[in-house]
């Protein structure tokens, strides 16, 4: 057709402008810095310095070990829980299936705080141990790599559960029956047939767990661990004194992006050669467990949930507890911390909602058109759009934060300040970080709308825009909204990129939590944490009501 299509071309142009300006340019900027010296000459000396510095090398190795250990322990827990929930029937199964998702809604920064209140050196458990068993020294549950691994595992195992539940549901029963017909039973069937069939879903979850752990700097810092890559990047950047060290922060973040992309490509390659998707219309029946086994399963899940609930109990108590030191529980209760964080400026809550709300508006404005282009159009560059969307999921928030500081520091034309001095940079960075959730939510819904439904509208006389409004939109708005809500919730919780970009007087809730905790005011940090958890819980309840429990698609 030779008609000139101006509108769509402008739309595609705007989308690319946004992505280039706020994702590709900043990331390109840190890579440029990483391979040039102060005078702008091309050099590999920065990486040379990194790989000859024993401390940096140890950080790299530690980060890898931490990632692998966390993925392993989260996988054991996540797969076990998923298998129990999908294949067996026991009392309270539905309740457990909902509750196991709860750790994921606790913002990472709040989670680690909660752990310190209960499992820290002077936390409830150690105080009890010393009182009751006359132990002289507290047990070190948390401070060290093992603590980081413990906190990350308990926070992230539901990512694996969600993906494996989804994958298990799609396994065609006949594949297992075939295994049985040739004599595979019990463990060998599970190990050789069932679990391998869930590989694609599992790998997607494991990759997210790895990258999340790998790029989280707040949790290690709260637990006093500095010899990891992400905390190193953070510390090098925020010192703002030594230009040399600042540059090494940039080099580290560039390295983290490179590694994340590498892991992503490896995982993609691994999954691509293992496409097991089958359309199955029947499901495997859940097996009813004997009472004794039911007891075991319930005990296991309850224990796991208790561990997962530690942070909630911890922050809730800390947010209302007064004089909580060397006692198992606070000795007096107060609301003064809430008063401080809600009433006094800066208005953390208002700011957070403003930033996250704007971020979602941007996410929908950019993300829904992207999803539409991916699902429906033949525009050149769709492959690149898809790749960028996946890339964002993998790029560490730490690196994005550092990239923004580096890239938007110059004075804007007409102003004597850089973009980094305006609060609008917060919703922008959040929108970029959370864009994939909106795109995926909308894309998945668009795939459910069979193309012929739109063609049918076209055949009875509806134009393109009219078809979208009357047929497409009514069928996808739920998906868009769920993706948007998820973007909103995770924006509120974002605690990596925004920690670099905090502006005096314009801090968000997570800025406040981090600042209060670092300054020693743990109670105020806890109060903000509780507020964040409540908002997240409400969002998840709404998402669940609207989308069922199928949140897996958003992560996959």
């Amino acid at each position: 057709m030779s008609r000139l299509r101006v509108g769509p071309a402008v739309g595609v142009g705007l989308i690319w402008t946004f992505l280039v300006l706020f994702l590709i340019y900043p990331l390109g900027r840190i890579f440029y810095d990483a391979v040039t010296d102060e005078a702008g000459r091309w050099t590999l000396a920065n990486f040379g310095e990194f790989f000859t510095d024993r401390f940096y090398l140890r950080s790299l190795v530690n980060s890898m070990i931490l990632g692998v250990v966390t993925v392993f322990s989260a996988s054991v827990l996540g797969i076990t829980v998923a298998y129990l929930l999908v294949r067996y029937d026991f009392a309270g199964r539905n309740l457990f299936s909902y509750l196991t998702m709860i750790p994921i809604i606790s913002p990472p920064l709040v989670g680690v705080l909660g752990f310190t209140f209960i499992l820290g050196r002077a936390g409830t458990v150690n105080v009890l141990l010393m009182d009751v068993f006359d132990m002289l020294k507290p047990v070190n549950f948390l401070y060290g790599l093992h603590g980081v691994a413990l906190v990350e595992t308990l926070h992230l195992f539901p990512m694996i559960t969600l993906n494996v539940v989804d994958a298990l549901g799609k396994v065609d029963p006949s594949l297992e029956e075939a295994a049985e017909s040739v004599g595979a039973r019990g463990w060998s069937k599970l190990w050789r047939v069932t679990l391998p069939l869930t590989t694609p879903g599992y790998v997607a979850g494991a990759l997210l767990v790895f990258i999340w752990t790998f790029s989280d700097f707040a949790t290690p810092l709260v637990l006093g661990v500095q010899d990891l890559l992400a905390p190193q990047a953070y510390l090098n950047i925020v010192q703002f004194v030594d230009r040399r060290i600042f540059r090494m922060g940039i080099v580290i973040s560039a390295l983290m992006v490179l590694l994340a992309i590498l892991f992503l490509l490896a995982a993609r390659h691994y999954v691509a050669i293992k496409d097991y998707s089958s359309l199955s219309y029947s499901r495997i029946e859940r097996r009813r467990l004997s009472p004794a086994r039911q007891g075991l399963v319930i005990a296991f899940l309850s224990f796991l949930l208790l561990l997962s609930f530690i942070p909630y109990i911890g922050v809730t108590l800390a947010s209302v507890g007064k004089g909580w030191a060397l006692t198992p529980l606070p000795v007096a209760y107060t609301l003064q911390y809430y008063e401080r964080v809600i009433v006094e400026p800066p208005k953390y809550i208002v700011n957070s909602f403003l930033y996250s709300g704007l971020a979602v508006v941007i996410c929908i404005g950019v993300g829904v058109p992207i999803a539409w282009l991916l699902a429906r159009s033949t525009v050149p560059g769709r492959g690149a759009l898809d790749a960028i969307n996946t890339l964002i999921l993998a790029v560490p928030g730490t690196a994005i934060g550092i990239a923004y500081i580096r890239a938007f520091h110059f004075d804007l034309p007409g102003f004597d300040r850089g973009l980094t001095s305006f609060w609008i940079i917060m919703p922008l960075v959040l929108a970029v970080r959370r864009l994939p959730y909106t795109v995926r939510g909308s894309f998945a819904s668009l795939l459910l709308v069979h193309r012929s439904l739109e063609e049918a509208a076209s055949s009875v006389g509806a134009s393109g825009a009219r078809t979208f409004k009357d047929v497409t939109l009514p069928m996808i708005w739920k998906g868009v909204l769920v993706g948007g809500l998820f973007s909103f919730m995770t924006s509120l919780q974002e605690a990596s990129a925004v920690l670099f970009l905090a502006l005096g007087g314009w801090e968000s809730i997570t800025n406040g939590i981090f600042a209060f905790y670092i300054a020693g005011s743990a109670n105020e940090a806890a109060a903000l944490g509780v507020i964040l958890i409540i908002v997240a819980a409400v969002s998840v309840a709404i998402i669940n009501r609207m989308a069922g429990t199928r949140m897996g698609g958003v992560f996959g």
Partner: protein
Amino acid sequence: MIIEIQGVTKRFGGVTAVDHVDLTVADGELFTLLGPSGCGKTTLLRLLAGFYQPDGGTIRFGDRVVNGLPPYERRIGMVFQNYALWPHMTVADNIGYGLRLRKLPAPEVHTRLREGLRKVNLTGFETRYPGQLSGGQQQRVALARALVLNPDILLLDEPLSNLDAKIRIQVRAEIRRLQQELRITTIYVTHDQEEALSLSDRVAVMRDGHVLQVGPPKELYERPRTRFVADFVGTNNLVPGEVQGAGGRGGDLVVSTALGPLRAVASGAVSGRCVLAVRPENVALGVPASGEGNRVDGRVSLVSYLGNTLRYDVQTESGLVLKADIRDPWHHDPLPVGRPVTLSFPPSVTLAVSDDV
């Protein structure tokens, strides 16, 4: 509305899905595009609908060239293979959507909606949602939605493929009845040759983006011009051979085959290498009283009882298997496997067609 398709070509990447197709469909005709999957029939239909634009050639509806027009400016009605009913709209909303888009006054919308429902016998189902209907009912809603706009042309894309066998025959008759009643030019796409034969005025057999043969069902069945058409439409015994010349009486051809020389009539242009096509129902067991016609000896290798016919597979000495139908199995005792038999078939039903495979 006459449809004229001239030199229409459509490529997807390196694949030419429709290759220089020329067709003319008469006003009020029910015209079927028949072929195996991947032959280009659905692509051609979607070119007519306007979902694709041709890479070459012209499409005319009447004297209007519709190349480049979007679907909603072509005055077509389309029924999709999966019905494509909007699940968030009721039956009435689905059917009335196009009417409302045309900003017709409410009473007229109402009248035409009611008439549309009546035409497909769905009065009383207005407030149901598509999910609450059976497959056949959904099919009829889709049909009503396409017809209620009084389109110039009705396009049907494998409309029966999702229905049970019994309902399929019922809906098939209903489509034919409606089409006759409205005298609307209709293009019907199917891969089911029985469906094509039973309801079409004319059929175009397609393969690899080309139209191989166009004709009324009877002509297509009795005078296929190529091996592919002979094989795809109905069942045929196919025997490769070489034309030896016009030898027999009445201009019959003599064709040398693995079964010996056989006499045949040419269907289409034939010379040199060719294929003989004989329908199983024209192959008789034993020798006719006149003693004339083609004769082949063999042994029964398979007996299939189909109720209204009984089919023998007879293996000849050359290894070739011929099928022969007994059309009155009630009065026939099946022969055992291995029994030697002689098959005969007259030259008038032995068609020599060109070998296009």
